[in-house]
């Protein structure tokens, strides 16, 4: 099974952070221990979905990488905020929360070896079954780095002409980085499409497995960034699809 998983999308607005949050939660429901690294530092963070306030996050992954704190200080157990009865664990590790540090990362970049060691020690120290990296859209150096040291890459795209080209570029670049496993999720699919046809067509286009074709959901839009969809709508078809993805990722 993959230990380190990057979830990426070439453009913003694909529902990436929501997907990460839901899959992590469903895995914890199945008694798994999951870490989520939020590197999507420039947009509204995944921490909102987990009900974590920015003020509560004192340390970040960077502090750990730069030796300023212990990993347990940068990993926030958000499970009790989701549902006290969840048997597994979800740890959120913000990549950086301070404007100055974001600038330093953008200036100096991460060191690949350090980040790789950091990720693996995170997995070991927190005894994680899976570490999910919520990457920043586009293909900047930090994103390439995350992809390069991942065991698996999942690319999320919408059935939208603007996503096709960027997804093609991402798939090609990831192949050149020898990522061992790669899969696609088609998200926000309008009801008028036949999901099987979408899956077949996208797989044929990118020569890559499509592990889910998720419909556009009005309920999800309504819930927006105020919580975890899968917990609010456990019987919804979208939740069933997330569950399926979670199973594939840990299978």
């Amino acid at each position, binding site marked *: 099974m993959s230990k380190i998983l990057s979830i990426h999308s070439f453009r913003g607005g694909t529902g990436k952070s929501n997907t990460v949050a839901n899959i992590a939660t469903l895995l914890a429901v199945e008694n798994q221990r999951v870490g989520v690294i939020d590197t999507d530092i420039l947009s509204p963070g995944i921490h909102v979905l987990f009900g974590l306030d920015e003020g509560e996050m004192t340390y970040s992954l960077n502090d750990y990488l730069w030796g300023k704190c212990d990993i347990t200080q940068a990993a926030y157990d958000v499970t009790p905020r989701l549902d006290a009865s969840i048997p597994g664990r979800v740890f959120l590790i913000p990549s950086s929360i301070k404007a100055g540090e974001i600038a330093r990362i953008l200036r100096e970049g991460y060191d*690949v*070896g350090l980040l*790789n060691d950091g990720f*693996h020690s995170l997995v070991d120290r927190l005894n994680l079954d899976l570490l999910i990296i919520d990457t920043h859209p586009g*293909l900047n*150096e930090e994103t*390439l*780095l995350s992809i*390069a*040291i991942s065991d698996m890459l999942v690319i999320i795209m919408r*059935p939208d*002409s603007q996503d*096709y*080209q960027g997804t*093609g*570029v991402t798939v*090609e*670049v990831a192949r*050149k*980085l*020898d990522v*061992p496993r790669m899969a696609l999720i088609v998200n926000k699919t*309008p*009801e*008028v*499409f036949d999901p099987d*046809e979408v899956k077949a*067509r*996208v797989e044929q*286009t990118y020569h890559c497995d499509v592990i889910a074709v998720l419909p556009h959901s009005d309920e999800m839009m309504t819930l927006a960034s105020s919580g975890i969809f899968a917990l609010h709508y456990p019987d919804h078809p979208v939740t069933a699809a997330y569950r399926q993805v979670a199973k594939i990722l840990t299978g």
Partner: protein
Amino acid sequence: MDQSTAERLNILRSVSIFTETPEESLLDAAGLLKKIEFKAGQKIFDKGDPGDCMYIIVHGKVKVHDGELILNYLGKWDVFGEMAALDPEPRSATVTAVEDTYLLRLGQADLYELMNRRTGVSRRIIQILCQRLRARMRDMVEDFEYMQQFARVTAAAVAVEAGVYVPESLNEVAARSDELGQLARVFQRMVREVDTREKRLKQQVAELRIEIDEVKKTRQVADITETEYFKELRNKARQLRAGRSERED
């Protein structure tokens, strides 16, 4: 009290303006009533006739109509023309007996006289007029709301044509339980169906165009993978993977 008076009292009690009138006042009123009979087909009064009395139907049946247009049928113990008895105005509709009909007539002068003697009757008449006025105002508010909501459906139709239709704009109208509500619901559904059909057609075209500009893609990939950073990253990633698999082995 003879039988006819007893019957008249019973009838008067059922007439709204006399419902709370004490028995002795009713006896007064009963004495003022004039009995009139009409044969089936006979006109009681014509639209436009000066009106100065009210009628109570004892038995039979009449129709209230305006030429061919029938406005209402009235039967036993129904009252008509009571407004005219209070405030003489030309009759607003024609009334014709459809069966042999027996009516009691109360003239304006007699009614005024009764009101002079019995303040209870006056009070009751004022109450009834107030109730009718309130009901009419309620009707007007409802009519106004109805017209406003009807205008929303019309506006929605204009919006559909202009391509700026928002389905939620009809939610309030669609929540009505009457025919206007049904019209709004049918309208919403039809627009949705047409919209879905149009989108499906558009997206069938889009589906066929899941195409990628390969030349552009090759250039975009090269822009990333040809950099020193990328080459170095790839080599390091390979070393790290190899190192890890060795450790794991």
